[in-house]
């Protein structure tokens, strides 16, 4: 991997982040309804509303507000939540680990399901095993995350009592058991997305000349599978996971709402309903930065694993 490529790829991030900030700032300031009046209620006089607006800096021209916003951002300050009176960064800092835990857990379950099944479907392609695996995941792809979550919650949580109903727990073992159902929900959905593409990429490898050659020179099937087929399948999985990080975050927003998990997804939905500008703004920014970084890491990893990718 040459340094010029890495530097070029890193430099591309800067204008992107600037554009992200402009977009987020504009978006949030188009919100109808005045957050201050909403917050203070009907009994607030105009004078009180004006004073609150002044304190929050909401009376200044938009361009000045944007300048202040960027300067504050560069200081690592995302503003203060209007409703909770807590710095947004601290709020996100407290909740982000929960969401990261959930997404990594879900990605793990998703990969654990998708990779072996994709290899199986590819090896047994065009048989009933393949048809069954693909049919099952086709169905899974059409199952809305919130609905699957609700059904799993009711069946395995409420009726059978196998898992805790929602929440996050206090210790790490508790996190694993509390987040199992939500992670399974997200993981099944992710597996359905991964499976289709993985299956065709495994078939491509299985029919490639170098695999035929490996077989022809007498390598055992197990060696061919682990050294060539699985290795390549994992490269595709990394790329696919990177591409789907946005979908995974979107899924986390819904799953956290269904399972009442105190992560950033639920924070976002709550903030939207209570018109908490700074929180929505901060979260959208954090999500965009997160996705951009994952794209970057995926690109760099991909370039490292497959030198041909640098040209693109």
């Amino acid at each position, binding site marked *: 991997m040459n340094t010029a490529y890495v530097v070029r790829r890193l430099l591309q991030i800067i204008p992107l982040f600037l554009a992200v900030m402009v977009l987020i700032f504009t978006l949030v300031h188009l919100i109808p309804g005045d957050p201050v009046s909403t917050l203070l209620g009907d009994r607030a006089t105009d004078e009180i509303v004006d004073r609150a607006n002044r304190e929050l800096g909401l009376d200044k021209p938009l361009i000045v507000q944007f300048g202040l916003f960027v300067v504050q951002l560069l200081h690592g300050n995302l503003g203060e939540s209007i409703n909770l009176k807590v710095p947004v960064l601290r709020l996100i800092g407290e909740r982000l680990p929960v969401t990261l835990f959930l997404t990594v857990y879900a990605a793990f379950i998703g990969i654990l399901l998708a990779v072996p099944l994709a290899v199986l479907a590819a090896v047994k392609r065009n048989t009933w095993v393949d048809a069954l695996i693909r049919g099952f995941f086709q169905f899974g*792809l059409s199952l*809305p*995350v*919130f609905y699957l979550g609700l059904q799993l919650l009711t069946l395995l949580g409420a009726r059978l009592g196998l898992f805790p109903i929602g929440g996050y727990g206090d210790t790490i073992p508790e996190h694993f058991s509390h987040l199992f159902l939500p992670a399974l929900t997200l993981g099944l959905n992710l597996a359905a997305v991964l499976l289709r593409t993985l299956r065709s990429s495994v078939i491509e490898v299985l029919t490639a000349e170098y695999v035929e050659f490996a077989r022809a020179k007498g390598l055992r099937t197990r060696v061919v599978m682990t050294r060539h087929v699985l290795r390549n399948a994992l490269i595709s999985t990394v790329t696919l996971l990177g591409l789907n990080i946005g979908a995974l*975050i*979107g899924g986390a927003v819904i799953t956290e709402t269904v399972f009442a998990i105190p992560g950033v997804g639920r924070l*976002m939905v709550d903030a939207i309903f209570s018109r908490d500008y700074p929180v929505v703004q901060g979260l959208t920014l954090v999500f965009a930065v997160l996705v951009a970084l994952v794209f970057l890491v995926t690109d760099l990893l991909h370039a490292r694993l497959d030198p041909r990718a640098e040209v693109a």
Partner: protein
Amino acid sequence: MTATLPVQTVTAPAARRRTIKPTLVIGLLLLLLLVLAALFPRLFTPFSPTDFDYTAILKGPTAKHPFGTDNFGRDVLSRVIHGTRIDLQIAVLTTAFPFVFGTLLGAVTAFRGRWADAVVGRIADLVVVFPFLVLVIAIVAVLGPGLTNMYIAVSAVGWVSYWRLTRGEVLAQKRAEYAQAAQVLGYSPARVLLRHILPNAVTPAIVYLMTDMSLGILLGASLGYLGLGAQPPAPEWGVMVADGKNFMVTAWWISTFPGLALTLAGVTFSLIGDGLADALRPRA
């Protein structure tokens, strides 16, 4: 919400041997059923989807109410069938603008646009860095909850996939011999693009349109569930799942049937998408 784009290259108008798979037929039959339910819901439903019946609250499935009744005594079967119209409308209206706009923009920027291509490319980079659902709910939050605002939000974001697909395809087709020939014959650029290249380059976008319709329904239902899409008492399937979520243990039928309807609609569009992909893919 997901990002699997069925990318495939289509070689110019060579004779194609088309295969119609049974999945496509099944998908189309299911679609016919959904369209009938959407157009003539009253043919299939004995009850009004919104009338309360306080004498039949939270009743389980019976011959009179095959899907049971909800906490207001509304007939769940009637609501699910009437919901078909809303959810199919969501499928069409979340994809129509992105498809038309994205495809045309992709064709034009690939065919002619040096700087335009670069500008649109940067905008697309900006859009994809936001998780799709997050950006859509942020826009819906700005505009206010409701179906119309949801369509606006999805349109603002959803064109990027079509732009990418068509742009790549037109870039490839532009160099094909038939396209070169049309240009040499002196046809206007608009004619070469719209009459010659685009018909050969639009297949991936059409196949993706089917996948996107099922994604659109899922998205619309998800927003309905969160309270940001269709508003109660509209019998939208996502809203209905949310209506019944507090009764899951005591009255499972309220949420379960609309959720199954959602899944069925999703399966329908992805069957058609897969079938179309197979049917339109050229065979050597």
